[in-house]
């Protein structure tokens, strides 16, 4: 009966040899259950997904996301070179700022979603773990030879997320300015226990929080330090997925793929204003047309009646007509009912629309609802 777990897509072996990350032994010592994810052994849970989910929403959770790709781009005319590859406006990205962007193919399909930060004389990218090798190949192919791409594979990446994350981290992070000066989507250089780290105020849970890039050899020491704070517990991939789903955030490979455009996914904010008229990025013609004219389908949130979850792949109906497909779905620990994200035909995408989802030959009633399902609580500055 455990076949469902073992065959879950998230545990699929992506690479022939499963890699280990700097915190591998640390996770096992904490009692984590390890699974193969994005080519690495990763902790799916420690004490349990629901407990970890609730802990993150009410206190602070430490996530190891070292599987993600950390890339550093530098070289002559860097901004122009990167703007030919990403739909970002780098003229408005100042030192110390981070922005969401998209790696697109020539047809405007999504190859990956990523974060771009301006460092001195360079741009720092964080890309998805499962796609990082393809991303590196794509960037090497499409960027001029003069641009240097450094894969910072000696760096670990930890996310500290939750309403008490700032209190816990402030006890350990020292820098030129206090941690409280960082607002959402800003980053800075800090020191933790004598190690140079970069801290961005961002994350993937909808909560206030931080992503800390640090030397891999210091990862266990810093993880111990943070988990020594009473507010902090380690959190696995399982809760990371349920938290991001409640926050209405897409997961690449499930909600986003080369078959989806960023506009239908509601990610037009990732196409910066100047680029919507100037174009000059892969897929610009289609995407800029879609921004003006709309798309045939939209990615929407669904509240599912009852307790039975509707999961990825379930078909969405309006009466007898199939109008969409679920791309992410599960039981929401915070809300106490199942929620899902689906691409549905735009005429059925308005909040309040009653639809049905087919699960094991049964029809579940569902209603289109605004996302996020659970409000974001990002820190945008003291009021």
């Amino acid at each position, binding site marked *: 009966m455990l076949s469902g777990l073992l065959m879950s897509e998230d545990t699929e072996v992506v690479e022939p040899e499963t890699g280990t990350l700097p915190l591998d032994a640390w996770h096992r010592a904490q009692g984590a259950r390890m699974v193969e994810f994005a080519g690495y052994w990763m902790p799916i849970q420690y004490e349990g*997904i629901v407990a970890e989910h609730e802990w993150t929403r009410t206190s602070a959770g430490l996530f190891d996301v070292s599987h993600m790709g950390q890339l550093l781009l530098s070289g002559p005319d860097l901004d122009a070179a990167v703007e030919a590859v990403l739909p970002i406006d780098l003229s408005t990205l100042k030192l110390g700022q981070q922005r969401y962007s998209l790696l697109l193919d020539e047809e405007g399909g999504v190859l990956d979603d990523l974060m771009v930060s301006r460092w001195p004389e360079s741009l720092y990218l964080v890309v998805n773990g499962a796609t990082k090798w393809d991303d590196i190949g794509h960037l090497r192919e499409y960027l001029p030879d003069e641009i240097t791409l450094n894969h910072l594979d000696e760096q670990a990446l930890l996310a500290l997320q939750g309403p008490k994350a700032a209190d816990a981290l402030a006890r350990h992070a020292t820098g030129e300015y206090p941690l409280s000066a960082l607002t959402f989507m800003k980053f800075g250089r800090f020191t933790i226990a004598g190690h140079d780290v970069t801290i961005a105020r961002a994350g993937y849970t909808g909560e206030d929080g931080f992503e800390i890039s640090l030397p891999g050899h210091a990862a266990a020491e810093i993880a111990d330090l943070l988990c020594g704070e009473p507010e902090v517990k380690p959190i696995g991939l*399982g809760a990371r997925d349920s938290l991001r789903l409640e926050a209405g955030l897409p997961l690449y490979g499930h909600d986003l793929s080369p078959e989806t455009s960023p506009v239908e996914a509601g990610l037009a904010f990732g196409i910066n204003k100047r680029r919507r008229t100037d174009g000059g990025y892969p897929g610009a013609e289609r995407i800029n047309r879609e921004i003006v004219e709309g798309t045939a389908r939209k990615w929407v949130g669904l509240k599912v009646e009852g307790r039975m979850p509707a999961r990825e792949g379930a078909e969405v109906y309006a009466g007898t007509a199939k109008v969409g497909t679920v791309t992410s779905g599960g039981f929401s620990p915070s809300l106490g009912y199942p929620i899902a994200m689906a691409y549905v035909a735009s005429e059925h995408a308005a909040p309040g629309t009653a639809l049905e989802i087919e699960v094991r030959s049964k029809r579940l009633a569902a209603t289109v609802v605004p996302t996020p399902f659970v409000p974001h609580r990002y820190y945008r500055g003291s009021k």
Partner: protein
Amino acid sequence: MARYFTDEHEWIDLEGDLATVGITDYAQGQLGDIVFVELPEVGKMVEKGGEAAVVESVKAASDVYAPITGEVMEANAALEEDPALVNTSPEEDGWFFRMTVADKSELDGLMDAKAYKAFCDAL
């Protein structure tokens, strides 16, 4: 009362002509937080090894197979209200369904508690 176990991590209690079926403590531990159990309808005929129920954890849906052939006589209504009973009391209050025993010889290949423990220890 005799309790048997399957290699699919179900337990089955035989009491007279009726058998009670659930999933083991090991299974619930592997599944994690259970949020929904889809139980068979009373009167449904199930075959040994055939799909009889579905248990949904936060992470995934997993099939529960009928350990023997028979007719479903009762489903555990308490699981509708509180599916987490499967986590807190998997081998008692969190039972799934009761069924008739069409062929007692089907029980022969199942494990007893000691054999099942050895089976889990080896996993």
